[in-house]
């Protein structure tokens, strides 16, 4: 039976309570009659033989590109770059897609007699991956062959000697990327395209870039004009990356792009209820929900976090394509939409969403308040095409504990951002002008980024910029069940229950508001007419 497409439910008296994520727990909440609940499409069929499909893709590339086998020559300089820990979410079961693809690439390179091969984790300004994380992404075979010889590296956006300035775009944007990658005879980039925004020219132009280059599109202006990030033609972020990508190509950097899509099979079978429609919950689902929610309510948050971050997703590959960047990405984007797209008719006054324990920037870490804002307003709010699910001036209700808690090793600059910047201003433009530079160039943050496992000093600013479009669009943001002090610091309104939040929302959108709930994860993208 083919998987069912996404679904928009209209809540009626017979509708059971709906699952809301709440960080490292979840609850069932009753929505007002007439509300809409948007469910993701069911997972597409997995590729039967992913390795064979990868080999096919390498042999029959898309666009203006020769097969990879023909591009590999003895004596050449080959760099293989890959997405970092931020993808996919949650981390997938072994073998990771990156391992499957890179092993096939390396097989061809070995057959062609290529000696000079370096692997680069495309971190941009993200934290460096740990050995365990690299082994999970690449597999022991690759790690043991390359890491001991110093051939498995992680992009360092602050190593001036390892960067190269390729020029400026027509709009004066600096393009500065990883020197090893840019000066190779062939750059193979291996993507996991979890959402439509991933991949394309963004892979190299962002993943391998420096702060000097990133600041041209990771800023309030670009973010405000990306409506949404997931809709390429309407995304200024996309346009900027495409300008840079084309300049990279014109500079003579030969990129062989490999993109993969995953299905929405997000949680293992013992948590299957998390991705099912509530009225279809079996006895086992109900028992698992009751047992796990009851146990989690008695579990210290640190332990609960450890449990959740140990989840390995059963994500399966649904497509793989390789070749010239733009041709590949066009097919990938179609495949992503095929899996995640849901047609929705019209906007609503209130949008609700339960935020889970994980976002791209807290894998094996803490979801601090800034990341809560980024996940809700930056990512989930932007999972749309045409127009947002909530009308301009509407209310966004988030469900998350929003603890005043930070991972000191992963997010050191976040702590100072929370204490020093958000106490002064919530305005992305003002903080961009007043504070960004000092955080971005702070030697201590740079030291921690380069030698530890810290996100770059400027990263919390970027998180806030991701929210810029939503902050401008929304009339109010209410956080249910969050730490009131942390929520207020973000400039949002705390509420103790969903019903209270609906009452508060009436002050902004009037009585009898229309309500839409986005039932994510699994990830979906709303095509709003």
């Amino acid at each position, binding site marked *: 039976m083919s998987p069912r497409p996404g679904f928009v439910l209209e809540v*009626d*008296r*017979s509708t*059971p309570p709906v699952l809301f994520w709440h960080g490292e727990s979840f609850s*069932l909440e009753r929505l007002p009659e007439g509300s809409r609940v948007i469910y993701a499409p069911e997972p597409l069929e997995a590729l039967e033989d992913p390795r064979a499909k990868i080999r096919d893709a390498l042999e029959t590339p898309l666009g203006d590109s020769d097969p990879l086998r023909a591009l590999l020559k003895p004596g050449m300089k080959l760099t293989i770059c890959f997405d970092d820990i931020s993808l996919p979410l949650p981390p997938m079961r072994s073998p990771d897609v990156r391992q499957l693809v890179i092993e096939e690439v390396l097989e061809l390179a070995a057959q062609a007699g290529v000696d000079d091969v370096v692997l680069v984790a495309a971190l941009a300004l993200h934290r460096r991956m740990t050995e365990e994380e690299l082994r999970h992404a690449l597999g022991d075979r690759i790690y043991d062959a390359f890491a001991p010889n110093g051939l498995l590296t992680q992009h360092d956006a602050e190593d001036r000697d390892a960067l190269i300035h390729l020029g400026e775009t027509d709009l004066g944007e600096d393009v500065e990327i990883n020197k090893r990658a840019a000066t190779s005879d062939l750059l193979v980039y291996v993507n996991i395209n979890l959402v439509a925004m991933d991949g394309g020219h963004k892979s190299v132009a962002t993943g391998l870039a420096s702060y000097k280059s990133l600041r041209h599109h990771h800023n309030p202006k670009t973010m405000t004009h990306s409506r949404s990030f997931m809709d390429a033609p309407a995304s200024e972020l996309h346009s900027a990356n495409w300008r840079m990508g084309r300049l990279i190509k014109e500079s003579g950097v030969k990129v062989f792009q490999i993109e993969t899509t995953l299905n929405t099979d997000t949680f293992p079978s013992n948590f299957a209820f998390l991705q099912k429609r509530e*009225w279809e*919950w079996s006895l086992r689902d*109900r028992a698992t929900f009751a047992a796990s929610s009851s146990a989690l309510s008695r579990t210290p948050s640190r332990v609960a976090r450890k449990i959740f971050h140990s989840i390995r997703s059963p994500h399966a590959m649904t497509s793989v394509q390789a070749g010239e960047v733009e041709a590949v990405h066009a097919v990938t984007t179609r495949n992503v939409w095929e899996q995640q797209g849901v047609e929705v008719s019209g906007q609503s006054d209130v949008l609700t969403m339960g935020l889970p324990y994980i976002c791209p920037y807290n894998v094996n870490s803490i979801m601090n308040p800034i990341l809560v804002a980024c996940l809700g307003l930056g990512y989930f709010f932007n999972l749309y095409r045409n127009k947002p699910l909530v009308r301009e001036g509407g209310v966004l209700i988030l469900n998350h504990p929003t603890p005043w808690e930070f991972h000191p090793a992963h997010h050191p600059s976040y702590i100072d951002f929370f204490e020093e910047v958000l106490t002064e201003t919530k305005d992305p433009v003002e903080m961009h002008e007043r504070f960004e530079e000092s955080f971005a160039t702070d030697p201590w943050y740079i030291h921690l980024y380069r030698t530890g496992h810290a996100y770059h000093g400027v990263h919390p600013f970027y998180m806030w910029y991701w929210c810029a479009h939503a902050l401008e669009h929304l009339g109010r943001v209410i956080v249910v069940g969050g730490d009131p002090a942390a929520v207020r610091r973000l400039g949002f309104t705390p509420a103790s229950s969903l019903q209270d939040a609906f009452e508060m929302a009436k002050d902004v959108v009037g009585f009898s508001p229309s309500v839409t709930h986005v039932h994510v994860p699994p990830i979906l993208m709303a095509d709003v007419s």
Partner: protein
Amino acid sequence: MKLSDVTSTVEKIGFPLARPTWPDSVPRSAPRRRTGLNYDHEWSRRYPVRLARAMLLDNVALPLSRVVASTRVEGKEHLRGLNGPVIFAANHTSHLDTPLLLTSIPTEFRHRTVVAAASDYFFDRTWKANLWAFSLAAIPIERTKVNRHSADVAASLLDDGWSLVIFPEGGRSPDGWTQEFRGGAAYLARRTGRPVVPVYIDGTRKILPKRSSSDKLPLGGSGSENRAGPGLRRHDVRIVFGAPMRPVEGEDARKFSARIERSVGLLGEETATDWWRARRNAASGAPAWSKGPDASPWRRSWALDRRGRASDPSSYKEWPPEGS
């Protein structure tokens, strides 16, 4: 605490402890359940299960049924000489009809008999389906509409040598009078060539009547708490087997079904009056006794229960007696 109390408490607590309700706006796809008509009951006819059921019926159900029902079985002679499976078509007024009938059927039929049971009532949950399939060799049938699958299953079992108990009314009578028969028994007889044995069961309604949901509520007033329970009351029961029937030349299922219904009604009239009066009444063209008088519910009930047993329907005209 009774099972019904537990169920009721769970329903009150609601989802997720209880099953989720289904949104009205969501069309229900065909259930992939293994209950209802889809229930696989083949296991219940394997030899070890049959052996266990035979021991249960003969050593537990039979003595227990005789405790609550002083049973008199008549007309067994009609079954002598019958070779192979038959279709027992009986009236239906109580849940006790099935165990009492099964324990009254001669042993040469009893342990190779299946019972046609409503799929929506007896097979809606797995545990119920398992229970009835094991204890009564029940098979699910669709009682609200014609269902080819139900008919095919029953016919194949008859062809395999299994007798069938069927209640052609499609459910228990709400007031004790016989309801119109559906054509299932007649259809199966025509299709398989097996005879139909009409059966009338009298008295089980007095032991365990059908209750509507409102009957389960306390009646109110002094002493009402004593009347609310579903307790069994001991009573006499008569089970009368009629002569086997086969469709005659040119008789379609509908006509044959009507004839079966008349035969069962005639057996019922025998229990209320006597064999001779029943036949005379039938020959006179008077309204079928088994349908009861065309009167208000309480008068129908009164007519049935008069003198502790069913009475002549014409007598309703005599009540209230002239001059009283």
